[in-house]
């Protein structure tokens, strides 16, 4: 199966581990990713509130650049995924808006007809297109004994939840169970990580982060897996600051779901980007997953 691939800016720097693990896992599962040639930034969250038309045009450029042979584009970053999807919908639903966006695209010799490209998240591709049997088939190191808390965040399940319950999504829960992990069913799995609030009001952001960490810890999670660079950054990067602020002692590793998949698939942790996170994940994984500790010792 072949898809256009839109990594987005985060995956080039702070979320490099996500990019690495997505490519590794995709390769193993036979998902062929063809990176969009000359893609540009999705504008993240802010641009839409500044200037909707320009923001849309900027994003639509990426859709217009998708190889016409490919009907689907995969975006691992939740914000990129949402922005691409939103753009396609806006253009499909508002003919006049669509026309304006295409006028802008025409300046660059491009055109995009809404609906031509289907925007997919990596999680959906793995769960829906590849499916349980094929994923289970690739598991060589089942994650038995590892208590994993799936963290969905906001943007993949809202406002376009697909067939998921946006208040209580389950897809990553299922995926983790296929890998043999003990899935932590904790109540805040689709609550907000604080997003960019860290830049605006730290106390607010820290409180939101603390809730997530606290709940995962209350449910005895060994680590949290996420599917968004922003979430990972907040939970991992700000964990120390949160501890300082609230006088807590959280030490929960935060990794991407594709990284933990790679472990179950027996891939080299280095190639999966382990070590780039601040709260080290590998020691926990090695300590908990049966057989991995011995292997690491060798």
């Amino acid at each position, binding site marked *: 199966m072949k898809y256009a691939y839109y990594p987005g800016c985060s995956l080039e720097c702070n979320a490099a581990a996500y990019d690495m693990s997505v490519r590794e896992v995709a390769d193993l599962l036979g998902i062929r990713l063809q990176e969009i040639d000359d893609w540009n930034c999705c504008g993240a969250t802010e641009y839409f509130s500044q200037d909707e038309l320009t923001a849309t045009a900027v994003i639509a450029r990426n859709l217009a650049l998708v190889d016409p042979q490919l009907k689907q584009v995969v975006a691992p970053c939740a914000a990129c995924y949402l922005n691409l999807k939103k753009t396609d919908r806006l253009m499909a639903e508002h003919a006049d808006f669509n026309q304006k966006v295409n006028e802008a695209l025409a300046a660059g010799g491009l055109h995009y007809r809404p609906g031509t490209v289907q925007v997919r998240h990596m999680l959906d591709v793995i769960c829906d297109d590849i499916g349980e049997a094929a994923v289970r088939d690739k598991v060589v190191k089942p994650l038995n004994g590892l208590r994993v808390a799936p963290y969905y965040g906001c943007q993949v399940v809202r406002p376009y939840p697909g067939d998921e319950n946006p208040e209580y999504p389950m897809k990553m829960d299922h995926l983790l169970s296929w890998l043999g992990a003990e899935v932590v069913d904790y*109540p*805040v799995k689709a609550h907000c990580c604080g997003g960019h609030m860290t830049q605006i009001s730290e106390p607010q952001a820290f409180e939101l982060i603390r*809730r997530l960490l606290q709940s995962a810890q*209350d449910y005895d999670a060994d680590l949290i897996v996420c599917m968004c660079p922003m979430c990972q950054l907040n939970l991992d990067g700000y964990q120390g600051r949160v501890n300082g602020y609230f006088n807590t002692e959280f030490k929960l590793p935060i990794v991407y779901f594709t990284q933990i998949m790679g472990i179950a698939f027996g891939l080299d942790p280095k190639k999966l980007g382990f070590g780039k996170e601040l709260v080290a994940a590998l020691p926990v994984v090695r300590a908990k997953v049966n057989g991995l500790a011995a292997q690491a010792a060798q």
Partner: protein
Amino acid sequence: MAERVGIYVCHCGSNIAGMIDVEEVARWAGQSIKDVVVSRDYKFMCSSLGQKLIEDDIREQGLTRVVVAACSPHLHEKTFRRACQNAGLNQYLCQMTNIREHVSWVSTDRQKATEKAKALVAAAAERVKHQRPLEQGFVKVNPATLVIGGGIAGLQATLELADAGYPVYLVEREPSIGGHMAQFDKTFPTLDCSACILTPKMSEVGQHENVKMFTYAEVEEVSGSVGCFKVKIRQKARHVIFEKCTGCGICVEKCPRKVVDNVFEAGMGYRKAIYTPFPQAVPRTPVIDTANCTWFTRGKCQVCSKVCPTQAIDYDQKDEIIQIEVGNIIVATGWKLFDCTRIPQYGYGRLANVFTNMEFERMCNAAGPTGGKIVLRDGKTEPRRIAIIHCVGSRDVRHNQYCSAVCCMAALKFGHLVLEKTKAEVYSFYIDMRTPMKDYEEFYQRLLEEGMHFVRGKVAEVTDAARLPDEQGSLIVQVEDTLLGTQRRIPVDMVVLMAALEPQADAKELGLKLGISCSMAGWYTERHPKLDPVATMTDGVFVAGACQGPKDIPASVAQGAAAAARVAGMITAGKVTIEPIIASIDEQKCSGCRICNNLCPYNAIEYDEEKGVSRVVAAMCKGCGTCVSACPANAITGAHFSNEQIAAELEGILWDAIADGRPASAAPDGSKAPQSTPVGAA
């Protein structure tokens, strides 16, 4: 000889005349449509003066056909047919066309609406010329009635009819009659003991000489029609011989196998593998739950058989099919509870101390699993704070859009019981408080005074993820308080979800057997939402209680009685009229190809092997016309909806298309397809 057609266009005050130029329609019809001898418009055709207009014209002008362009024939077809009949014209020579619901009320352009009305009038006029006089038939009504469902609505209907002296068959799926009401502790707003008012009715039904009860039984098949239904009932094997059992209960007492009771106790308590659902059950005869009985699952035990003093246990008993004949059927199959796990953010099934309303009902009931004590799932701790969440699965576009009608009052009742029995604080989280019936609002006021807390807002989630020290170990209800305009987190020990009432899972299936339809939500559809709430589209089948839509006990009882009154009316009349709109087969044309033979869901078509032709059994035909349009030999005719009548209607309805759509050069050919313009030059 040409027919003499009269056309009557109704103004309906300004309902029609406001959007349609009725004078123009009448003028045009009089001038342009062939064979029209009278064409009038009138303020209110359905008034006695309007009807008299038609009657006088029939007598004085010798009309042979009448067209009334007014409202829906579903409202006034009978009125105008009667007027024609009064003046000596067969009622089936009157045709109504609907220019109100279908034209004036839905249009915005007067000219276009007038054009559409003309086409409809032309259609009716062309059609009516081909209509034939028909006579209605009659069928005798069997005085016996089938009531399906032994809940409070069905019990009420049963008693009304039985007391009036008519035989009633009552079919109940569970081992005992009583329904949901038997599970309740108190009823709102009077706080009557539910069992105290229900059980007398149950035993009355159980002992009534005119009632034949089938419990632990289901309706298998229904055939026939109003007046003479034939019903097959599946009596499920009880494995206890009904006639021998005295109901002493020793088998239940001695049975070693305990099972979680998911039906009557809503999963809160236990019963035995041989059981009666509750102490006051009617009948007292127990049933063996073969899925759990050790004899049936492992081939050991037989304790019940050993202890039974009357040898009433029969492990080899089989399901039995019983055939009965009835004149009418009352459906009172009730409702089932919404599955709260469908809203995972409320934590039901995941968080121990989240309960459903039915679980809480059982908990409050003195005869229930906790002996009426309100305690947490551990069975001993009394809660200090209780949250009651309204509209769980109701008024929610993701689940059920409707209001379940009883939950607000039930929540108030719960609040009262909690305040009466415990020292706990009670919070009600409501979207809107709905207390419209007699004494209901007063009850709400009473709870306000008793100190129940009301928070207006839809609960976002119930979580155990504490944020603040005093939230530790509690369930936290996260809600936007829309009166204060703020987010609130309220820690509680127990949450009660007021789950929606939903149609029974097999409501559709039973509906198909009975030939009645369900609404989009799955409730049975009544004949008319306002004016005929207990009848259905199928003559002789009535609905009562919550199977028609969520309703509380008084409303269910009222409907049960209403349905019984309708049935009693039919029985007293002794006969029902049968519409003559049926199919018939011309044996000369029929080649016996047998295409039509299995098209009739009522088996009204039979094949005469000897003559090699098919035949319609008039009494069984319901007049749908499906066989008429299937017949490849054109041998079947549908009375009142014949090919000729519909073809004529088409020619009328497309009069202007024929006039302007047809190329002039094609006009003179003597072809069959487009006949000459049916109406004169406009």
